């Protein structure tokens, strides 16, 4: 082999032989014809297009539906790796729910001085409307998508805790379906933990948080902003798979103190809303008055215990990028244990010393907006031009409190299939976590996003990223 790779490659590790989890796959791949695999790859694309697994890109003139490119080389984790990860995730998600309960009730963590008060008080993601409200079953984050990155054999970091309305789970499921259809022989050779029961687990988990007013078999509905939303496919997919209705704001009305949907036979009460609209659009009577996406009056019904909203309004305070840097403290404060999963070292630009350091090292750091998402409005120092850095410096100096900075992580790579064979590309991982009153349930695997461009560290689908099937091997 040539030069040793700078990055940790999950298939090859450091040596010439594949790492253990990839052994069987590597043998299989060695016996395959590259042309056949390319052919299969094209078939997969056809399959996605026919099924309509597409997303819309915001800000593009032609609001086209686009496919997220799918790479056929799976990302593979051993059972032992997964066990460790899932323990860390469970601990973190437990802490997040305890934090949310606390922050909307007695605020012990602020009293104890573990988090600056103004970080919560002045934060748009903190909803005063939720103060003193306990969600049905005590669950705040019914669904969490914890973003993880890896930099070495045993080194994982949590990049983000997506505690609002994490998306991407439909890709986790469809990627597996596609692999099963294309390469059944692989799955008889390699034992992979299944993901396909996620929708049923989601249903069970949501139903377990139904309010007291609910009927015996709770009525579930997925609230979507509509067919033009970038994740509409996923909303429809999940509603379909769970056997729930797919509703929009204009299907809803308050009837006898419950939120009810307009059916062909009249209005019917809903017990649990899995909402895929943001807090601020949820209820025009409480939040943005011009919003057409939500249900007028839903917050009053919610506060009176007439409906479950998943995730609960106001969970954004837990995955806010400014709060993120305090997560190790939060985990310790509520669980009494040290965090199993590490945070990425983070400079809070609101602090003068940190800001000075960040301004001096812009070419090495990744700088993110505190409230941004989807890879928009961020600076990747090592990849940026001098001009881009200068522009960003001005923005950062003007509103330092709006930014955090992190070192550019040496993200691990997993090979993708290119016309010349396997080639390493950077990846991250979003496992999906379900929280119900009595348990936390993590589907083995998750969504692996991959930066398809050589050398690129940005895995977001809106920025040229693709996805891979993620395998967790049976013991």
């Amino acid at each position: 082999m040539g030069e040793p790779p700078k990055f940790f490659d999950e298939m090859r590790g450091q040596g010439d032989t594949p790492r253990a989890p990839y052994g069987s796959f590597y043998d299989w791949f060695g016996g395959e014809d590259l042309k056949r695999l390319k052919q299969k790859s094209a078939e997969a694309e056809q399959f996605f297009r026919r099924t309509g697994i597409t997303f819309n890109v915001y800000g593009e003139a032609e609001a086209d539906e686009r496919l997220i490119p799918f790479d056929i080389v799976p990302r593979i984790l051993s059972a032992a790796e997964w066990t460790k990860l899932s323990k860390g995730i469970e601990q973190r998600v437990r802490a997040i729910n305890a934090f949310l309960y606390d922050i909307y009730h007695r605020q012990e963590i602020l009293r104890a001085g573990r988090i600056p008060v103004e970080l919560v008080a002045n934060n748009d993601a903190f909803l005063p409307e939720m103060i003193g409200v306990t969600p049905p079953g005590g669950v705040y984050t019914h669904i969490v998508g914890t973003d993880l990155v890896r930099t070495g054999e045993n080194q994982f970091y949590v990049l983000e805790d997506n505690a609002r309305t994490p998306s991407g789970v439909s890709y986790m499921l469809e990627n597996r379906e596609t692999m099963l259809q294309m390469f059944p022989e692989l799955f008889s050779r390699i034992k992979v933990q299944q993901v396909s029961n996620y929708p049923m687990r989601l249903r069970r988990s949501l139903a377990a948080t139904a309010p007291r007013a609910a009927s015996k078999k709770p009525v579930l509905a997925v609230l979507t902003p509509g067919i033009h939303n970038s994740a509409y496919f996923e909303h429809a997919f999940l509603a379909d798979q769970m056997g729930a209705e797919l509703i929009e704001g204009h299907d809803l009305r308050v009837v006898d103190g419950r939120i009810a949907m307009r059916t062909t036979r009249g209005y019917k009460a809903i017990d649990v809303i899995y909402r895929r609209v943001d807090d601020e659009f949820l209820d025009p009577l409480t939040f943005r008055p011009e919003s057409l996406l939500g249900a007028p009056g839903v917050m009053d019904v919610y506060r009176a215990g007439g409906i479950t909203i998943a995730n609960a309004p106001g969970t954004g305070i837990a995955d806010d990028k400014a709060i993120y840097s305090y997560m190790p403290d939060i985990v310790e404060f509520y669980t009494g244990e040290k965090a199993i999963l590490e945070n990425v070292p983070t400079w809070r630009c609101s602090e003068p010393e940190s800001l000075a350091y960040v301004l001096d090292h812009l070419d090495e750091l990744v700088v993110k907006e505190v409230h941004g998402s989807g890879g928009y409005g961020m600076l990747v120092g090592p990849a940026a031009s001098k001009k881009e850095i200068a522009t960003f410096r001005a923005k950062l100096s003007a509103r330092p409190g709006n930014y955090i900075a992190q070192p550019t992580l040496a993200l691990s790579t997993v090979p993708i299939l290119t016309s010349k064979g396997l080639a390493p590309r950077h990846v991250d991982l979003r496992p999906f976590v379900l929280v119900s009153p009595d348990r936390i349930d993590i589907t083995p695997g998750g969504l692996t996003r991959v930066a398809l461009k050589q050398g690129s560290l940005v895995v977001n689908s809106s920025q040229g990223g693709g996805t891979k099937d993620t395998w967790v091997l049976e013991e």
Partner: protein
Amino acid sequence: MLGKTAGGLYWMFRFLERSENTARLIEAGFRIALTRPLSAEDEWASILDTIGVRSAYLDRRETIDAAGVVDFLLRDKNNPTSIMSAIQNARDNARLVRIALTREVWEATNECWITLSDALKRPVRDRDLPSVLSLIRHQSAQVRGALHGTMLRNDLYNFCRLGTFIERGDNTARILDVKYYVLLPSLAQIGSSLDNVQWETILRSVGGQRAYRFLHGGDVSPPGIAEFMILDGRMPRSLSFCTAKIADNLGYLEMDYGQRVQSHDQVGRMKGALVGTTIEQVFEYGLHEFLLDFLADMARLGASIEEDYRFIS
């Protein structure tokens, strides 16, 4: 089921039916243009009248000719009744009600949209028209096949069928009304023109020329055609057939929901009026008036269904 979902299914199938009907009209026009070039221009104009878009067409184009009309009806995005617009609308509605459709129906609809978007990206040349029209027929047959083969026979299916037959009944009545004068008995000389171009177009517009011959042999006559298309319960595009199907599907909904609503009474009256009627009585009443009544009844019925089943709030 959500009212919105019922509405989405209903409109999805109305639009699919509309695209098929338009394809059939283009096919009939094209056939006439090839076999009887002298009548072609009138024929294209009357096709525009049938769909009710003559003035919309003339807003955008100077002359009525084959290339212009075919392009306008096939792929003009500014024409809300063009095949491409109808397919787009059908697919938008299908996306809206995706969870009410089986995977097969959704995929067939999506594939129909992908395939036709591609085939209709550029103007279709004369020599490619037959294959494009057959592609359209083929694609919508896939959707229909998936519907019949995979959907549960419940209220979802009933709303799909209601959309289909409201649109189809309306379409057949329009075809007849645009040419009602050639079907009047006063113009029919016994045994005169077996080769009447107008009669042929009418039959072709509903894809009924072979079925008619099968039933009536060589006996092609205006009252025969009128009876075939209005009253013949065996002909799947006749007014009687469409009305009976609408009544059936509303009847299933009544049983299923245990609710009787205004549209049930309306369709009952329409069906009753057709059952007891002979073609002679239709002519006596006035074919044109009869058809206008039917079109108005059909429009009212559609509106009542939307209201009865809460398609919109």
